[in-house]
């Protein structure tokens, strides 16, 4: 049985290390795009002007109403026929990020709404403008509230990133598949990729509980009961199942 050695070989081989880097990069960039889009959408949904809210709702309807895999393939294959040509990586982070934004909007919005009305009133009473109240009073408090659900999204995104193998981006899953198709050692190649995924999710969950503890110290008012690692793994924090 040489399997364990082969798995180890794969793990330290250049293609797998590069694939792992690509997976992390796609995850991080997509999540950042998702957070930016989500924040804009959440603020639009809070707007006083119905047309602005309408645009946001249309976005949510489009991106939550179609599969993310469909969106990925759409960006990669259909946009070029309109003269918009992206590399595999750009298509990947664009599709994943835009899709993520539609889900992140809900998280951002619940965070913003969790900050009491009295806080806004207090800010306005001091002479702050509405955007200043948002920037200096509401968002910093909302940021602490949304740390747990955003952490979940990160783990979800890490796993979702495997989808981009279908548009030929050299991330972990595609590397594993290609490696295996050369010698049919699927068990070893996929195990190597799987171990990377497990390593990343585990490390991230540990980092997440550190971050949450830090946030709890700076904003005890919103403190909630700490979560166990099992709960984190199951993604219980946001109270909403992740269905795509």
């Amino acid at each position, binding site marked *: 049985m040489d399997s364990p050695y082969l798995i180890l070989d794969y793990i330290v081989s250049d293609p797998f290390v590069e694939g792992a880097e690509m997976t992390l990069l796609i995850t991080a960039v997509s999540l950042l795009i998702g957070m930016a889009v989500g924040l804009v959408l959440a603020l639009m949904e809070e707007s006083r002007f119905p047309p602005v809210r309408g645009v946001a709702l249309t976005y949510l309807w489009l991106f939550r109403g179609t599969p993310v895999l469909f969106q990925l393939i759409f960006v990669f294959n259909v946009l070029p026929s309109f003269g918009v040509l992206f590399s595999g990586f750009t298509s990947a982070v664009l599709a994943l990020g835009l899709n993520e934004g539609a889900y992140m909007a809900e998280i951002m919005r619940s965070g913003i709404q969790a900050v*009491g009305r*009295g*806080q806004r*009133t*207090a*800010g*306005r*009473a*001091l*002479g*702050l*403008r509405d955007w*200043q109240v948002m920037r*200096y*009073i509401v968002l*910093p*408090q909302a940021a*602490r509230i949304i740390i747990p659900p955003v952490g979940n999204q990160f783990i979800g995104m890490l796993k979702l990133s495997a989808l981009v193998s279908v548009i030929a981006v050299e991330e972990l899953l595609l590397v594993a598949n290609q490696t295996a198709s050369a010698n049919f050692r699927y068990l070893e190649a996929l195990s190597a990729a799987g171990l990377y995924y497990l390593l990343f999710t585990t490390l991230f969950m540990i980092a997440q509980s550190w971050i949450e503890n830090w946030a709890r110290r*700076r*904003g*005890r*008012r*919103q403190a909630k009961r700490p979560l166990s690692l099992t709960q984190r793994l199951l993604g219980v924090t946001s109270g909403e199942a992740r269905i795509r």
Partner: protein
Amino acid sequence: MNDRTVTQDSRLLRVRDLQKSYGHAVVLKNISFEVQSGRSVVIIGPSGSGKSTLLRCVNLLENIDRGTIEFMGRNIAAARAEAHRIRSDIGMVFQNFELFPHLTALENIALAPMKVRSMPTRDAYERGRELLAKVHIPEKADAFPDELSGGQQQRVAIARALAMNPKLMLYDEPTSALDPEMIKEVLDVMLELSEEGMTSIVVTHEMSFARRAADHIVFMDQGEIVEDAPANRFFTDSVHPRTRKFLQQILH
């Protein structure tokens, strides 16, 4: 003629025929009253009588349906676009303190001067420390709100309002959420401020404060001003039966 001019100038706030409704429910009707510069007006009345709403109308946190609000000689009810600038001259203290929980006491106080008045950080912090000393908790500069007692939080909230050098202070039931032993420390700060000449409107149930600090007492019931009298006459000579009944209830 001369007398008239003098009265005109000393009048910091003058509300006339203010009317406000939520949908069909009229919550404030025909409200008219004045606050002279350097004086304190105490508003009392049963809950739901519109006292808090009136305060919120005065610093434009609520829209009004009708009437005028003259502040420093100008009708601010018609100046919605500048509402934030007008509010920066009017301090407000809330029943639930509403300190910003993610900021320290000092940061709470320094925020508005820095962001609204573009005051340099060092000056804002220095001023913040002075104000904390003024409300008798200089040692709490770096404490977060949840590390402070209710009375301390409310005093930080007063300092935060004072940081903008307001011309008028609005207190919305500032001691109602406090444990009895903490009420005095907040009232003492408010008394000191009015003795220094701060103009204020205070919605409160604390009759001891009304007796000591108020120049005028306004009694409201069901969205109307029932009685408005100088403090020294209010408790003894109030004429309206509704006022008498309310006073009997709260004074036992």
